[in-house]
């Protein structure tokens, strides 16, 4: 311990003093000048609540939002992976038309702010798709049945199913651009010798992709993909702007209903942090283990 203290130098002390002053000021002003009454004791009730009517425990607003975010992220991640692989392959296609179409899609999604993409998609596509597939009636039909536990585990409140699907699709479309770039980089990093060898034994372009290029490329790009998944979880907060009931939207509702501004936002930020940081630690550990396996 003493050696640790001896290692600290004067800038360290300066930083510590600055930090303490900073947080002290925040604490003081929240309690003092702003007259804000902390109500932390209510927060756990908004995560898991005791329903006074039904006499049972249930997942309240924040937990509902968290599970919705996790569901949306997983489904959008899978969809983005599929779309991204198609896009990445298309970007490397020998056919100019396909390459150009993929490039247009990519540049369109990459150069426009995510907020704008979300609104454009929501206004143009999502309602049409929902109507065309008659999703609202179908999901309501399911919601009216009695034993829908399985549906609820996978999709939450079935009455909100169309908005969940909207959120998943728009998030997947947006992220597929980035996944596509990762896949393209992976494909292009495969040595030409592999491709030439595949051609020389008579494989078609499609077979070459399927048996030689993609397996190697996908294995190579797993680390950036994992990072992209974490980015996807963070980007999912934007779909709260199109009223999808995920964590950020639920927090806005909570703040509007109870005025617990500070506690609510700090708790939500903590939730996102725990999920993203936790995942990044898990991925880092997996990567390390994979390296030592070699």
């Amino acid at each position: 311990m003493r050696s640790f203290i001896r290692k600290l130098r004067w800038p360290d002390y300066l930083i510590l003093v600055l930090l303490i002053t900073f947080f002290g000021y925040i604490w003081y002003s929240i309690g003092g000048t702003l007259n804000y009454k902390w109500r932390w004791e209510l927060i756990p009730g908004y995560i898991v609540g005791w329903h006074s009517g039904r006499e049972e425990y249930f997942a309240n607003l924040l937990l509902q939002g968290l599970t919705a975010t996790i569901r949306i992220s997983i489904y959008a991640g899978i969809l983005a992976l599929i779309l991204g692989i198609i896009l990445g392959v298309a970007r490397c296609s020998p056919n100019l038309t396909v390459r150009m179409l993929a490039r247009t899609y990519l540049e369109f999604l990459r150069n426009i702010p995510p907020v704008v993409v979300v609104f454009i998609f929501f206004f143009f596509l999502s309602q049409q798709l929902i109507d065309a597939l008659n999703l609202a009636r179908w999901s309501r039909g399911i919601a009216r049945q009695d034993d829908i536990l399985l549906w609820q585990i996978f999709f939450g409140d079935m009455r909100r199913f169309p908005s969940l699907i909207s959120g998943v699709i728009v998030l997947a479309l947006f992220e597929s651009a980035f996944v596509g770039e990762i896949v393209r980089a992976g494909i292009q990093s495969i040595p030409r010798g592999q491709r030439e060898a595949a051609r020389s034994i008579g494989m078609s372009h499609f077979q070459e992709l399927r048996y030689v290029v993609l397996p190697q490329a996908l294995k190579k790009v797993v680390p950036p993909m994992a990072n992209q998944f974490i980015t996807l979880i963070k980007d999912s907060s934007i779909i709260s702007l199109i009223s999808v009931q995920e964590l950020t939207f639920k927090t806005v509702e909570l703040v509007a209903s109870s005025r617990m501004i500070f506690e609510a936002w700090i708790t939500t930020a903590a939730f996102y942090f725990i999920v993203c940081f936790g995942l990044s630690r898990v991925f880092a550990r997996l990567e390390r283990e994979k390296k030592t396996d070699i």
Partner: protein
Amino acid sequence: MSALDMEHPRYKALPKQPSIQRFFGSAPVSVAIYLIVIGMIVYGSFAGARNMGYNWQWYRIPDYIYTFTDDGFQWGEIAYGLVATLNLSFTAFVFATLLGLLIALLRLSDLIVGNAVALGFLELIRNIPLLVLLYLFYYVLGPVFGFDRYTASILTLGVFHAALISEILRAGINAVAIGQWEAAKSIGMSQGQIYRYIILPQSIRFMLPPMTGEVVHLIKSSAIVSVIAVAELTTVGRNIISDTYMSFEIWFTIAIVYMAVTLTLSVGVTYLERRYAVDH
């Protein structure tokens, strides 16, 4: 004895693709097919929107970009929004670079607390969504420190991108050959002097391309401050839409403006990358 004697019966020329394939595979035809497909998609959405009862009002759009009034040429709201976005992004970028430099230097130093604080800051910012960070700054820290929505946006964008920029700066500094450090130390320069005269000037060429990419990224992130009604391009767009309900035309125009800005900047990035390419 030439190895590639094409006349020799054992070496046959590769069969040419059938001419119809060559026709479709050629560049002009590919471009034509591409344009046809794009045209079909655009037409499909136009027709679909009209069937939805949507009333196209393209003729109103130029008024929002510029007008000719009695006072002469005047820029419209969209133009002002664009200027506000660029202003906001520039200010946030300067703040982000300074903060990012501080964090990078802390990470590179051997200060224990400094390193811990920098690492904590980075992990915290990197694992919270930008929208949640914005709400935190505006609704939580705003009342505490008394800053308005414009300041809250600058701080949010600055802090968020400082985390990304500090990594770029750190990579750039680390990319400077270690021989430079050693040489500088051997002639007795202090840490500060080494940074100022030797390392930072050389690291700039490594940092410049990713930094310009970061500028593009920041301009895109700036759209999110429209949720707290700060004057910028996306906010202007949403305001016009809420007044006139020309959703398609406005969103399309806004998207085009953003694309124009970012593509121009990307061209700049490519130019810089080529100019500063490190040839060892």
